[in-house]
């Protein structure tokens, strides 16, 4: 049964059309007494949206926002001053750019192609990993989703299961930072949270990182991610949803056995007929295209 079928069925049973629902919510063209009462009840929520703050507080916030905006402008990013932890993003951008410039200079002057190649194969914890990431910033060496998954697979293969999960979560979070709210899907945000929960769950159980079931589950997740990543990216809705499902299975008491036995399990608290959004008890995020109409 499709989402629309479920909806139509519910409308029939409830004897309230979508038009009725909109009338109740907007208060327009209401004639039915029960619907009018429902609208009256809902209007009690209106004053919440008219919460006001003092003029001083508003002025102070406006000044702070204006200052932050100036800091975030592209021309003022390099040379930012470390004086406010909330301004770390522009600062990190500047530092990353500087690091990249230094890395490029190092690469050109010394001509160490071999180092770049070695760096490209580095994984977190390796001495050359920082150089690998810096070179990626300026387009030297592989980068992006497939690279991060490949690194996680190396980590998982060497028994660093928690680090592997954390690495994917960090890559997703970095993708979120990069996209800000302009294109990062809520499913990807869910996946980040689910991965972090899974890592925490595995880490909290001293036997879990050594468990064959957990290792198999993590390896399966990474294998599947590698296949999907060949033709999509972290901000893809279906990809994010699938990662979240697999991560939840890993973090479950069964230690990943759920995922191995029943691929596709997930979506703990979704509404019936709601095929698009994240479960209501896990973090959401901006939809694709928000802010880019």
């Amino acid at each position: 049964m499709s989402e629309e079928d479920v909806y139509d069925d519910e409308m029939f049973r409830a004897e309230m059309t979508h038009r009725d629902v909109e009338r109740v919510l907007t208060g327009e063209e209401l004639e039915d007494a029960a619907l009018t009462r429902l609208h009256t009840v809902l209007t009690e929520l209106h004053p919440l949206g008219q919460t006001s703050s003092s003029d001083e507080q508003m002025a102070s916030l406006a000044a702070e926002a204006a200052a932050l905006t100036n800091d975030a402008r592209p021309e003022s990013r390099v040379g930012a001053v470390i004086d406010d932890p909330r301004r770390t993003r522009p600062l990190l951008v500047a530092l990353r750019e500087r690091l990249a410039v230094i890395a490029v200079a190092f690469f050109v002057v010394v001509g160490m192609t071999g180092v770049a190649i070695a760096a490209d194969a580095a994984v977190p914890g390796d001495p050359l990993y920082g150089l690998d990431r810096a070179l990626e910033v300026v387009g030297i060496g592989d980068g992006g989703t497939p690279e991060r998954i490949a690194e996680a697979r190396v980590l998982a293969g060497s028994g660093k299961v928690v680090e592997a999960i954390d690495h994917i979560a960090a890559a997703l979070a970095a993708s979120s930072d990069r996209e800000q709210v302009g294109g990062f899907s809520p499913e990807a945000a869910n996946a980040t949270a689910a991965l972090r929960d899974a890592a925490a769950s595995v880490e909290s159980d001293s036997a879990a990182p050594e468990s064959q079931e957990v290792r198999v589950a993590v390896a399966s997740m990474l294998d599947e991610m590698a296949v999907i990543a060949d033709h999509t990216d972290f901000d893809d809705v279906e990809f994010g949803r699938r990662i979240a499902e697999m991560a939840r299975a890993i973090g479950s008491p069964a230690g990943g056995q759920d995922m191995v036995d029943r691929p596709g399990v997930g979506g703990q608290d979704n509404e019936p007929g709601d095929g698009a959004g994240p479960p209501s008890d896990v973090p959401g995020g901006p939809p694709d295209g928000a802010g880019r109409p």
Partner: protein
Amino acid sequence: MVGEEVFTSVLTAAKSGADWAWSSIFNQLFGPVTGYLASRGAVEPEDTASEVFLKVARSIQDFDGDETSFRSWVFVIAHRTLIDERRQRSRRPDQVAPPPDEASEGGNVEEEAVESLVTAEVLAAFGRLTETQRDVLALRMVAGLSLEQTAQVLGKRIGAVKALQHRALASLKQELDLSHVSR
């Protein structure tokens, strides 16, 4: 709503860091954002709203769109910030959210935040809805967003939001009818 021409000027000025433009944005949106956060259980709605607008300020250079899109975009950030706050709260042992049975009775945190403005009857009925249904109603009734904007904020299809708000209203209608019968 201030009109597209005015909004374009405000947005341009806000991007260049003009205080007056930010004041204009706050006048339009600080109340609805704070109200939305309060209705959805933020412990310190005004503080969280301030955090939301500082995030808006840091990201506004990347925004490109009309007034309707801007409003949706701000609420996307508010929704995400709220979810982050809930997650952080749930991980702090000293600030654990109310037990599930209490939350299902009406949501104590939300009740404290809004009880001065909303009657107990509505609060109780609202509290018996699912989290997602409450999200939808709060975005529609408190934030004043359209169906399309609500879908955008929650990252759902319009059909899914229609179904959610329909179920929410059907539940409320039933709740309130039952209240009358019991009196």
